[in-house]
């Protein structure tokens, strides 16, 4: 009885951190998926310089550590002459979230591009001979098929994101991991770590179940 109270107390202390972790997760998903879609279409556009520039962005985001990108947004941007003072983000959480969104947009963009390339060229031909415009072909034919194809990869990436959110604790944001650390330091035992692991695990599990459902729903 005593010990279960004690665990419950600990969970309660971890609650706000857990919320921050979830907030970062949701913000990143909600913003990086549409942004990734835009990045894909720009990358695949016929405009060569634009496509090259977007290619550079993707390389940068995928070729450097997310942690470094977070530090960069937080510390380095304000130091850029003239524009820096406007770039300074007052909130550590916002700085981290900006890095997360940009980084994940690049990963999602590459997943989406794979999904688009997997669409049979016969789909475009059928659409064309049926007099469906290029824009409608994108919206009604390409996007729905692409989303179905990429669902498993998006699910995978989403679970990675859930765990990656812990990186934001390095900016001093009071997320789940950071709060857990504080508790462990205070209580000098590892119970809080175990609880945090269980929390992450439950969230990952819920995600994987949701995505399995989505896959079933949108199967064709």
């Amino acid at each position, binding site marked *: 009885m005593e010990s279960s109270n004690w665990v419950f107390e600990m969970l309660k202390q971890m609650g706000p951190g857990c919320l921050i972790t979830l907030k970062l997760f949701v913000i990143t998903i909600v913003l990086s998926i549409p942004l990734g879609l835009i990045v894909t279409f720009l990358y695949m556009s016929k405009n060569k310089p634009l496509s090259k520039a977007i290619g550079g962005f993707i390389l940068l985001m995928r070729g450097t550590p997310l942690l470094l990108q977070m530090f960069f947004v937080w510390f380095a941007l304000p130091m850029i002459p003239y524009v820096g003072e406007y770039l300074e983000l007052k909130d550590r959480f916002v700085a981290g979230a900006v890095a997360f969104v940009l980084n994940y947009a690049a990963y999602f963009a590459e997943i989406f591009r794979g999904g688009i390339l997997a669409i*049979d060229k*016969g789909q475009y*031909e059928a659409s064309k*001979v*049926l*007099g*469906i415009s290029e824009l409608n072909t994108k919206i*009604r034919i390409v996007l*729905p098929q692409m989303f179905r194809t990429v669902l498993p990869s998006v699910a995978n990436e989403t679970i990675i994101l859930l765990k990656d959110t812990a990186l934001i604790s390095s900016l001093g944001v009071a997320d789940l991991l950071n709060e857990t650390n504080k508790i462990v330091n205070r209580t000098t035992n590892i119970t809080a770590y175990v609880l945090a692991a269980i929390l992450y695990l439950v969230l990952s599990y819920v995600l994987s179940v949701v995505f399995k459902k989505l896959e079933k729903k949108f199967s*064709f």
Partner: protein
Amino acid sequence: MYEIEAINVKKSFGNLEVLKGVSLNVKKGDVIAILGPSGSGKSTFLRSLIDLEEVDEGSIKVCGESLCENGKYVSKKEKNRILSKMGMVFQHFNLFPHLNIKENLMLSPLLNKQASKKEIEELAFETLKTVGLEDKMLAKPSELSGGQKQRVAIARALMRKPEIILFDEPTSALDPELTGEVLSVMSMLAKEGVTMVVVTHEMGFAREVANEIVFMHNGVVLEKGSPEEMFNGAKNEVTKAFLNSVLK
């Protein structure tokens, strides 16, 4: 006036000249079968007629209106208007896998505001009935057999009420026992007077349903004529050899 008039059409892929001056006249109600060995340019020619390939030289007219003249194409808007008179059926069906059968049929007419939604829905039902698949309205393409898929693809093309339907080997991807149901739908359309240009290896269909056989070889039309003329007395040795080999 011809439904399709192709004059001296030329087309290269890089250094490979695939169409070396192909001409073809299609009259209303014609069923034309294009035969020829693999790589002779049949698909490329058929696809050129509906703007899936852009030709380098020559002219193409549809129902008296120019799609391209001496290799120069009309504006996009003109193209869309002219091409709306044609439908095409592909070897691999190319149904939209994420949409059910009804949605496959209705998508283009809805987007092109061909009629009210209710009318389009009724048309979809009637059209599916003519290909014998009205009970599959809500099925997904993946739930159909190959023959059923191709009949849906034909129905989808019919939804736009085209003057002409092009078929590129419509039965080549099917198991032999499923070709019959597709060919009989095509025969029915032929009887109803739908103009058709069909690239095919089905000699029975070519002989019984087509009123003209066009034999292509190496990017040219080597010989053409009525089925009797072609199957019983082809003049060209290459034509004869090809027909003998496929009829065996």
